[in-house]
């Protein structure tokens, strides 16, 4: 073997080993839950055993072009004005972020807790709540306003609770869920200790201004997906979805299948659905553009689907809504 051949083989091997070495170091460093991108203080109120966590940067979404276009399509609603007048909270301006967690076990409203960060007039909220029969109490140094809802004669009736966590942050939910959130914060046993969930959260936080991650089984059980459908779906452990709201809507949905084979089956299901969708949309260029934006991604056990809802599609929806209003003779104002 000549010297030139030896140099060539050594050089090639060196490139491969350097690449693998870099990857190996990155693999072990990346696996450690250090320096999380989701340095979101509200996560300290999410218990470690939460089945799902969701987040929305309300301020960014409200300021987006997408929201402006959506306002043209959707009615403004009197409820929002009533909410603003009575509580002194303008959802569009006073709320910065919303973090929600589903704790599992019970039905979604009862097993969920929502942490809202923004600017609130706590005195006005407390006065209004107590006028409506709410009872104030302190729990681990935090102010709670609780009010029974639904059938109050039942043994286990729901108790809606608002907790003022700290300056500019409050929690909403059923009393037990809110107290569990406060306990998680006090004990430090919060979702940041759940490495599996935090890996997902760290992955999605940079991909959009709204996201949700969670255990797939807990969510499908809660959603009441028929067993017939579940039996035909490949086994999925975790899921994540995120959207970036700006001029249009870009997003991704990701599922962590049980193994590589299940992931490939899931990709086949998605691919088949996309093919069917493309066949059904026919010559509609707008829908075709949207379907073409759907891209299957992911590798190994990960199956992903990215999508983009262009602003043109919103304008199309706006046109449909306007035509619908004219057809009904409701006399609504057509925004354009």
């Amino acid at each position, binding site marked *: 073997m000549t010297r030139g*051949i030896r140099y060539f083989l050594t050089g090639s091997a060196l*490139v491969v080993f350097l690449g693998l070495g870099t*990857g190996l170091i*990155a693999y072990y460093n*990346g696996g450690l839950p250090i320096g999380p991108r989701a340095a979101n203080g509200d996560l300290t109120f999410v218990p470690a055993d939460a089945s799902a966590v969701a987040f929305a940067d309300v301020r960014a979404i409200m300021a987006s072009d997408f929201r402006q276009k959506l306002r043209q399509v959707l009615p403004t609603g009197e409820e929002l004005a009533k909410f603003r007048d009575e509580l002194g909270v303008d959802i569009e301006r006073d709320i910065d972020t919303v973090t929600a967690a589903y704790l599992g076990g019970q039905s979604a409203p009862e097993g969920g807790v929502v942490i809202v960060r923004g600017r609130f007039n706590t005195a006005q909220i407390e006065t209004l709540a107590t006028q409506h029969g709410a009872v104030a109490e302190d729990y681990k140094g935090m102010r709670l306003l609780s009010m029974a809802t639904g059938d109050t004669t039942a043994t286990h009736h729901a108790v809606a609770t608002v907790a003022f966590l700290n300056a500019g942050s409050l929690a909403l939910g059923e009393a037990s869920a809110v107290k569990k959130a406060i306990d998680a914060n006090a004990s430090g046993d919060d979702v940041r200790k759940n490495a599996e969930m935090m890996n997902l959260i760290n992955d999605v936080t940079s991909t959009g201004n709204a996201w949700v991650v969670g255990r797939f089984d807990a969510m499908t059980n809660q959603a009441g997906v028929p067993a017939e459908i579940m039996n035909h779906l490949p086994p999925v452990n975790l899921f994540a979805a995120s959207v970036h709201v700006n001029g249009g809507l870009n997003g991704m949905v990701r599922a962590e299948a049980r193994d590589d084979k299940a992931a490939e089956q899931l990709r086949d299901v998605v691919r088949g659905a996309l093919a069917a969708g493309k066949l059904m949309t026919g010559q509609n260029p707008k829908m075709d553009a949207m379907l*073409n934006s759907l891209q299957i991604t992911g590798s*190994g056990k990960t199956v992903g689907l990215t999508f983009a809802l*262009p602003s043109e599609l919103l304008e199309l929806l706006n046109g449909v809504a306007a035509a619908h209003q004219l057809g009904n003779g409701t006399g609504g104002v057509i925004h354009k």
Partner: protein
Amino acid sequence: MTDAPRPSASPSFMYAASRVFELSIGEMLWSRRTVFMGLVVGFPVLAAIVLRLLSSLGVAPITVNNHGVDGPVIFGLMIWIFFVRISVPVLGVFYGTSLIADEVEDKTITYLFSRPIPRGAVLVGKYLAYLACTTFVILPAVVIVWLLMIPMGGSLGASFIDLTKDLVLLAIGLAVYGALFALAGAALKRPLLSGLVFVLGWEQIAMILPGYLRQLTVAHYLQGMVPHAMPSNTPLSLIQGMFREVPSLSESLISLGLIMVVSLWLAARTVTRKEYVLEQ
């Protein structure tokens, strides 16, 4: 005083194969085929460099409806399109079929066969030289593309396991295609044409047909191990995706191993038994 090998003693099969390997690897690396291999493998590297430069300038290199596609997705597509579907089968065809056919065409096979070594060792030695030559070119290229593409919105650590899978399956693909086309080169009169028909014709058709025909391809087992999502950018890929059946990892490995061993054994047997007639 050293013991010199007795001239009458014929070397062992493996020793003979290693001698042929040393002789052949130099010939293979510094040949015109290397230019072809450089083009096949250099294109994805060049594409990766251009995409990375565009990305560093703040331009999304690939967009779908104004939505930039991340580096890991592009890397997955490159593995599928450039390496699994093109580089590996095409290099297997060009190099594998030439192992014996070139010696016949150059009328130099007589010199090899007149040596006191098993004929099968000539083929195995040349096959090992092909394998070293191609893997030592393809694998570094994949690593370079990976290092360039993944940081564009992805994590090197998160995609490390997939990279190792990619490297292993590409090496397996080169070994299997090489063995199969070494058999074609030893047994057929026009092996290159037959090889191209197999790779670009038969495998493409069989892979989109529902049923069992795909099991008579190498691509079925090799593509089943690719850890990245299969691209659905063309109607052919879409149809292939719809009828795709992914064999299990063990099924893929056993099938590919069988194809490689049986092909190589048959090729060595053919070379040992066949009388090559050199055209004057």
